[in-house]
């Protein structure tokens, strides 16, 4: 079976600085994968490459066997790749409900948005998602007025609303309470299987909670890959990343 996502020797150079350096990575359909690595390892850049925001200087990105490089962002999104940003990005001047109503209508043309009302199924889906992320009572509130954690969850809900085959989730639990973190892990685990999920995080408890294979990025390439226990015991990982965990906030 072809993997749902494959990166082959992807290199990204920012004025000579290699943010990604010959990066190889494969994701099987339905997989849940955690990606960790020190600050500046290139994790976000790696998502930028997949979603079309950054064009690599060399290498290939395949989604279900088809090359993605060169396609505009909205085409890639429509192929079924959704993304949550590192700092929550929601539409602050729109209510929570309206944020989700835009997300479920992923990529509609202007004419369709104008002339076709939201179907009942999608309307219900929005309602379910609002309840799922605990924003049921805030549905008419402007997203700009939400707390940081609520924004994180709203954005996760927007990502789920898009119903992409591949979910790329950049630091979903930064700023969330312990309870919310556990809840988020459960949600992502539930999504995997029917979706492919790639999660970037610094929170080790959260990663452990995901019970997923871990890929460690360092200086733009894969340092090692494997189950959490094995990765944690790897001296190279301890050296570049975990050993410095105390320094991190």
């Amino acid at each position, binding site marked *: 079976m072809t993997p749902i996502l494959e990166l082959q020797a992807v290199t990204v150079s920012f004025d000579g600085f290699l943010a990604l350096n010959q990066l190889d990575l494969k994701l099987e359909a339905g997989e849940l994968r955690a990606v960790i690595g020190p600050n500046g390892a290139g994790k976000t850049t790696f998502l930028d490459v997949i979603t079309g*925001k950054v064009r690599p200087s060399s290498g290939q990105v395949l989604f279900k066997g088809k090359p993605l490089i060169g396609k505009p*962002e*909205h085409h890639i*999104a429509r192929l079924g790749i959704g993304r949550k940003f590192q700092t929550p990005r929601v*539409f602050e001047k729109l209510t929570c409900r*309206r944020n989700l109503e835009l997300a479920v209508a992923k*990529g509609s*043309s202007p004419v369709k948005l*104008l002339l076709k009302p939201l179907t009942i199924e999608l309307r219900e889906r929005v309602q379910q998602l609002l309840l799922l992320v605990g924003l049921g009572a805030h549905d008419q509130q402007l997203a700009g007025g939400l707390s940081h954690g609520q924004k994180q969850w709203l954005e996760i809900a*927007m990502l789920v609303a898009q119903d992409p085959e591949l979910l790329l989730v950049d630091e979903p639990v930064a700023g969330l309470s312990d309870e919310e973190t556990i809840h988020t892990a459960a949600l992502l685990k539930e999504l995997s299987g029917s979706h492919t999920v790639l999660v970037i995080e610094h929170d080790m408890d959260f990663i452990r909670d995901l019970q997923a294979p871990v890929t460690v990025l360092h200086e733009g390439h894969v340092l090692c890959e494997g189950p959490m226990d094995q990765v944690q015991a790897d001296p190279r990982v301890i050296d570049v990343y975990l050993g410095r965990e105390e320094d991190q906030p």
Partner: protein
Amino acid sequence: MNLVNTSMPRKLIFRYLPFLVFVCIALILPLLLPPFRLNLLGRFLSLGIVALGIDLIWGYTGLLSLGQGIFFALGGYALGMHLQLQNLAPGELPEFFGLYGVKTMPAFWQPFNSGIFTFFAIWIIPALVAGILGFLVFRNRIKGVYFSILTQAALLVFYNFFNGQQRLINGTNGLKTDTARFLGELVGSDGMQRNLYLLTVLVLFLAWLLCKWLIRGRFGDALIALRDDEQRLRFTGYNPTAYKTLVFVIAGALAGISGALYTVQSGIVSPQFMAVPFSIEMVIWVAVGGRGTLVGAILGALLINFAKSLISEQLPETWLFIQGALFLLVVTALPDGLVGWWRNGGPNHLLAMLGRAPKAATYPSLDLDPELKS
């Protein structure tokens, strides 16, 4: 849910009341105002239409165009040309052609003989130009200041072109419409002007309805999303180019209609419609009235133009200073414009500042939200 349903009619009336009042007043005014004042009002109302378009692209979508004069003038010229061709003997040319020794009418004038063609040309030509310009600019992801500069540069190109083309469209002198006849009546006559005023009220109302419809639903949400975080919307699968081009086209069409109505009420269309300051003024109307609120755009156009005509009658030299000061005041003190200030509880704050206790020092948006009242 019940709560929402019972308050629905009241909410609807409340929402549409200002405009109903406005329409009623507008319809009574012809009986009260002398023709000169009525004509001024008609002109300013027609400027409200171009302001609505600017509000759509700037207030909602975040595209600050300094070139709306292009579309405004194109609409004006389309109608001006049609009127020039009225009541000519067979083979006769509009008078100004004689000045430059032009013996045969340029081919592009021909279709403007037709009233139906002109009716469509008034808004479709500006819309087309906006579409082409917009598509090229937006596809290349030109945004922000660069977009503004580019629209101004386009405006200058059109301005210089129209100024230089005596033999095509009478250059700097423009086209007079006052002395033309339409349906047998002089366009400049009081009766005709009153009808044009009423037509303007109607068209402004329709334009407002159109804009209201555009921004009400998810299309309007997408515009706001584009303004606030275009990239986020892109990653949700939306193509910003399509949205921006469409809304720019609509604003262009509105500007064209506005320009046509303005032309016949001021008696002339000239390249001055494409002068740089005029297009900047249009933006100021919207800023002062309140961008992101449709009523604000109309109100801004009316207020500033009335102030301008009053002050210019008395102290012509001071107007530019006053306008500049007004703009600065709005940018610094009332960033949401007059209507935004009003909606955010501005009057209460003002009372408080003047030492009078406002009725309740609370968040007006919470107070007014029926969902939160139980």
